[in-house]
């Protein structure tokens, strides 16, 4: 852990309440986080980003995005996100975080340039640390 690194702002988009709880605690332990916002599906996150698109202090540094969600799933979020990403005052790094080990999901994620990487659940403390301190 690099104590000198700046604190990060995060958005977690996931409908799995238990996972969200676990993730919150793990991320806290990294000590690299300034704020963490949780949205149970894509739509909430999209609205938030749109609302604050011109406020770089509020736009997160990272978005952890689940695939499988009701109403608006991870893919639909990305489709929507792509429509206004250029209007964002800051570009968050997007990580797909999913329990799916399905090759088709992995391939699909890799084909989307907006996605920085694909992380398979469960996510260990070390993984979160590496991502948040840009040590990947």
């Amino acid at each position, binding site marked *: 852990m690099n104590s000198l690194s700046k604190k990060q702002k995060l958005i977690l988009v996931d409908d*799995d309440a*238990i*996972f969200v709880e676990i993730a919150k*605690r793990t991320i806290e332990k990294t000590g690299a986080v300034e704020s963490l916002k949780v949205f149970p599906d894509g739509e909430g996150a999209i609205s938030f980003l749109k609302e604050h698109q011109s406020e770089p202090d509020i736009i997160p540094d990272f978005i952890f995005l689940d695939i*499988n969600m*009701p109403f608006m799933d991870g893919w639909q979020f990305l489709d929507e996100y792509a429509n206004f990403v250029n209007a964002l005052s800051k570009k968050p790094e997007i990580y797909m975080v999913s*329990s*799916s080990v399905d090759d088709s999901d992995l391939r699909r994620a890799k084909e989307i340039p907006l996605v920085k990487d694909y992380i398979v*659940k469960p996510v260990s403390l070390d993984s979160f640390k590496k991502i948040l301190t840009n040590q990947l």
Partner: protein
Amino acid sequence: MEERPGQEKIKLDQNQDLYRVLIETSRELICLHDPEGIYLYVNPIIETLTGFKPEEMLGRNPYDFIHPDDRERILIDSHNPAKEGKPTVAMQYRFLKKDGDYVWFQTLTQPIKNKEGKVTHLNTTSRDVTDQVQLTESLQQEKKFSSIMAELAKVGAWESNLETGILYWSSEIYKILERDPSLGIDRDTVYQKYSYSEDLEKLRENNLRVYQKGETYSVEHRMVTGTGRVIWVRTQGKPAYSDGRIVGVYGAMQDITLSKLVEEEIRLSEKKFSEAFHSSGNGIILLDRNGHFLELNQSFAKMLGYEPDELLFKSFQDVTYPEDLNVGAEAFRKIIDGERDSAQFAKRYLHKKGHIVWVFITGVAVRKDSGELMFIVSQIQDISRKRILENILREKNARLRSVGNHLKERISQLEEFNQIVSHNMRSPIGNISTLVKFLEEAETEKERVEYMEYLKTTSDQLLTTLNEIVEVIKIRQSPKVVSEEIQFESVFSRVKAMFLGQILEYEAEIIADFSESPSIVYPQVYLESIFLNLLSNSLKYRSESPHPVIRFRTYWSHGNHILEVQDNGLGIDLNKHGDQIFKLHKRFHRNTDGRGLGLFMTKNQIESLGGEIQVESTPGQGTKFIIHLSKANEFAI
């Protein structure tokens, strides 16, 4: 005899009366003419011969009576020489009778000279040669005919005299055997030069029979012509008798090379046809215009399990499979009417044992030059085996297609389960493993209790998902749930009763119309579940206004039994959710308690029975589910 000027110059002796008697009773016409031919005396026979009386002739010119065509000939060849005192020859010419007909006379004209040698009179003697002339004419005609006939028929006559050894050939034989007639012929030459050695013995035997037994013969044999050609002739021989003894043989020889050739060709072509007919593996039949068998081969009889003789008394209609009596009938009629000459079609015959024989028939009309139908030759090919193979192939193909579709479906199911395992099961398991680690590292009791709570929730969630999956797998793996005939109405009313409270609360209008197809053979539990899920969905995703209207109806379309459920509810954005609508744990509406299980189960139930579910929807307008309860069976082609 009357006194006439000049007559006194003839000196008659005392026997004058005798001459008169002789002349006047002569059967020959005897006349005395002056040098120019004018009649001076005509004896009485003239009346018998011509109808004219002697006195009618006196003073007249014979040329008045001679046929115009004969006059010049008479003048030149007879009259003129006679006038000059030269001897003449007998002439034949036509002489006019009183009735207008002509009589043929043969007349000799002789000059009568005086002492000075001057011709003073002409004497003619004539005979009626009409019969002779006619005989000669008809003989000449006969000769001409026989010569023409001999030439046309290539028949010649021959005679062989046993005693003298002389051989005679008519001119036609010389022609047939290409020998110069002026060379004549003798027996040795015939044997050495013109006989075909292999047939010589046969000829000798026949000739010997004539000599010894007096039998006639007729034999076909070969000869060699002057130019070395081998020809076929028919020689006929008959004994020639003299004083009751056989002295020779005579007969005819005809060149039959051409007809022999034709005969041989016919024989060959008949042999070819007969061989093709009888040894063909295909059935061949000759049919008359009524469809009766004129002739048929062994293959055809065998094809239908009969002996050839049994079938000869039948017609093709008798062995045709009743349903196919009209197959080819039109073509057959057209052949008989001369509208066409051939036809091809497949039909069924009935085997003697009663089973069906599929055949392919090619029928061709055989007509006389006049166009009249003689018979129809039909080739019958047994295609039963081919048909069976084709059917097997078709069925196998259909099976393969079906298996292929089934496999595709299986693959998509596996993909679906893979997704379920990935998303719906891996997720809680990941949580559990992390929570267990958290639990181990927990420092306070409070923390421990908290993690235990999470663990419990997650494991419950996992168990529920697992149970759901097990349920679906059960549906998938036992598509042979018991089906029975069910009235849609009765199942539907039971389901509707379960939702009575909600229906009343929401003032929902439920319209069910199963009149087009009131019942189906289907597992009751599934149908109940399908109705339940769809009705529950429609009620759950109703729109606030207007009040909900939900229609159920069943009908048939292209062999598919269809259930349609339409509501005027919230609808689903299919562009967004179209590929997810039937997936597990998918929800598209907030503020509802759906778990995303109903449509997933419904789809699995429908598909496990070979059906299909489709959805049409517009957000704000409503949703329509179209369910193919049974899909058209592709085996039923």
